[in-house]
């Protein structure tokens, strides 16, 4: 058996998986990306280290998988700042992060394939042999990682959202996402909105910096945050229920316009009609850059969640398939995608080497989250929940378990006690 790892999907999870697979000693790691750039929804993200994500981030450094987090730290526009409900956040620059990640992957010897949309899978005898790309190229591998995400195709946004709003996923240009596990016939789950309908809407838009008032921009660039009170007639608290990012479903977010400086202006609302947005003092000339039609809606997420175990192995009739990111369950966010992706990538190589897969214990927050989310997703009533280190139900659990801390020594000791110090740097083959 060879050791070629094929990662399908170049978002945060796929990038993290490719990196840990290479760190674990795989000869060749191929990362397939549908579009012209890595990171997918990470291209509109930016918020790191807020609340429990700080703990998770430092655990990843302690376990030897800190490279991508370092790229985020290195390109951060703002560090250690607060916004409503969120402490010690940092914001990576969405304009600079992609080249930094690509450079990091190439430095480690990952092969990055762009314009490589996965279309079909070839499997026999319970193993995947190869994936077929849109170009009809056949990519063989020994183990596969499904990090195709849960956004798109356009039907998802048409049927469960407000239609295609031309987001950064760019389905019309590069072709829609196809689920690898789904193509293998593995039954997948779909998350729900608060009202019970399928999917969940992305929680923020990007506004062009040139189009907001100079005094708001000045505050934003100086502090990272600008809160602009909404005029009374525009306050709509109902909209919060539709957001994927439950940690931002707070009253402050309904009564103010919350803007964060991630390179563009990150506007913390799933959508808002631009003529209303322009009634807010200082936003008279506002214009969306992502989604382009942020007036009407945002991308839909959380279709096609794979059944998986705590080692990120996809459960079903395929023996060489792992997953990470939003595929791995209702874990929201870039940090969350990176941790699940990293574990999937590492364990994929362990599986190739015939070694026991790593399961992170519940004594560290990442292991606790991975296990908890899997267990909770077994109950249909939880499919409307979203889990994140940074807020909402899961951060409360994390605090209740005493897992949340920003003390690096405590985190290092916790990881050491579990015997996991630099585990992701160990070559297993």
């Amino acid at each position, binding site marked *: 058996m060879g050791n070629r790892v094929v990662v399908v999907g170049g978002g945060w999870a796929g990038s993290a998986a490719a990196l840990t697979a290479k760190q674990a000693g795989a000869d060749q790691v191929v990362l397939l990306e549908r579009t012209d750039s890595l990171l997918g929804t990470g291209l509109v993200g930016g918020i790191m280290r807020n609340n429990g994500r700080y703990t998770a981030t430092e655990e990843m450094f302690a376990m030897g998988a800190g490279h991508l987090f370092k790229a985020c730290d290195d390109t951060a526009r703002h560090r250690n700042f607060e916004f409503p409900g969120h402490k010690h956040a940092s914001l990576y620059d969405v304009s600079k992060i992609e080249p930094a990640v690509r450079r990091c992957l190439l430095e480690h010897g990952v092969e990055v394939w762009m*314009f490589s*949309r996965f279309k079909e899978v070839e499997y026999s005898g319970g193993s995947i042999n190869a994936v077929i790309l849109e170009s009809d*190229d056949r990519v063989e591998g020994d183990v596969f990682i499904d990090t195709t995400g849960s956004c798109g195709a356009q039907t998802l946004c048409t049927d469960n959202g407000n239609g295609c709003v031309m987001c950064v996923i760019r389905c019309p240009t590069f072709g829609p996402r*196809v689920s690898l596990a789904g193509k293998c016939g593995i039954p997948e789950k779909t998350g729900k909105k608060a009202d019970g309908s399928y999917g969940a809407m992305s929680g923020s838009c990007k506004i062009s910096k040139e189009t907001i008032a100079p005094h708001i921009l000045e505050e934003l660039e100086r502090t990272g945050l600008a809160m602009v009170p909404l005029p009374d007639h525009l306050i709509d608290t109902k909209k919060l229920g539709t957001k994927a990012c439950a940690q931002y479903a707070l009253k402050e977010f309904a009564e103010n316009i919350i803007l964060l400086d991630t390179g563009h202006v990150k506007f913390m609302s799933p959508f808002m009609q631009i003529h209303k947005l322009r009634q807010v003092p200082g936003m008279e000339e506002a214009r969306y850059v992502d989604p382009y039609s942020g007036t009407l809606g945002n991308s839909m997420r959380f279709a096609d969640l794979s059944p998986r175990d705590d080692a990120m192995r996809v459960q079903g009739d395929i023996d060489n398939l792992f997953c990470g990111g939003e595929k791995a369950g209702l874990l929201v966010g870039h940090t969350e995608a990176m941790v699940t992706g990293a574990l999937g990538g590492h364990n994929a190589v362990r599986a190739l080497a015939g070694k026991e897969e790593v399961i992170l214990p519940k004594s560290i927050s990442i292991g606790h989250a991975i296990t908890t989310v899997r267990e909770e997703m077994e109950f249909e009533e939880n499919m409307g929940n979203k889990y994140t280190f940074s807020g909402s139900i899961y951060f409360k659990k994390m605090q209740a378990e005493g897992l949340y801390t920003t003390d690096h020594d405590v985190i290092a000791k916790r990881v050491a006690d579990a015997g996991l110090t630099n585990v992701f740097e160990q070559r297993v083959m």
Partner: protein
Amino acid sequence: MAHMITAECVNCSACERECPVQAIHAEADQYVIDVDVCVDCEGYFETARCKWACPVNACVPERDSYQYKARTVARRGGRPVVFSGGPDVFGEMLPENNKNK
């Protein structure tokens, strides 16, 4: 003869709603026309209704399919573009085209 939908389909569902004989349904990646049901809109419309409705010209007469397929793939970047070999070549690196091991 029938019509077919190329890979340019953006899953907007316009054709499905317009089809007079319900020959169109959604599949995993895109909408698909059932060639046994499609009547090229004969007796219903002057020109094929799906072709009329489609915003991206993905509904085409079946006989033309091969050229549309080729065009679509070319437009989306054609064959994969592979970056490898470390960051030294990142700046001036020429992507190695059509690498397929």
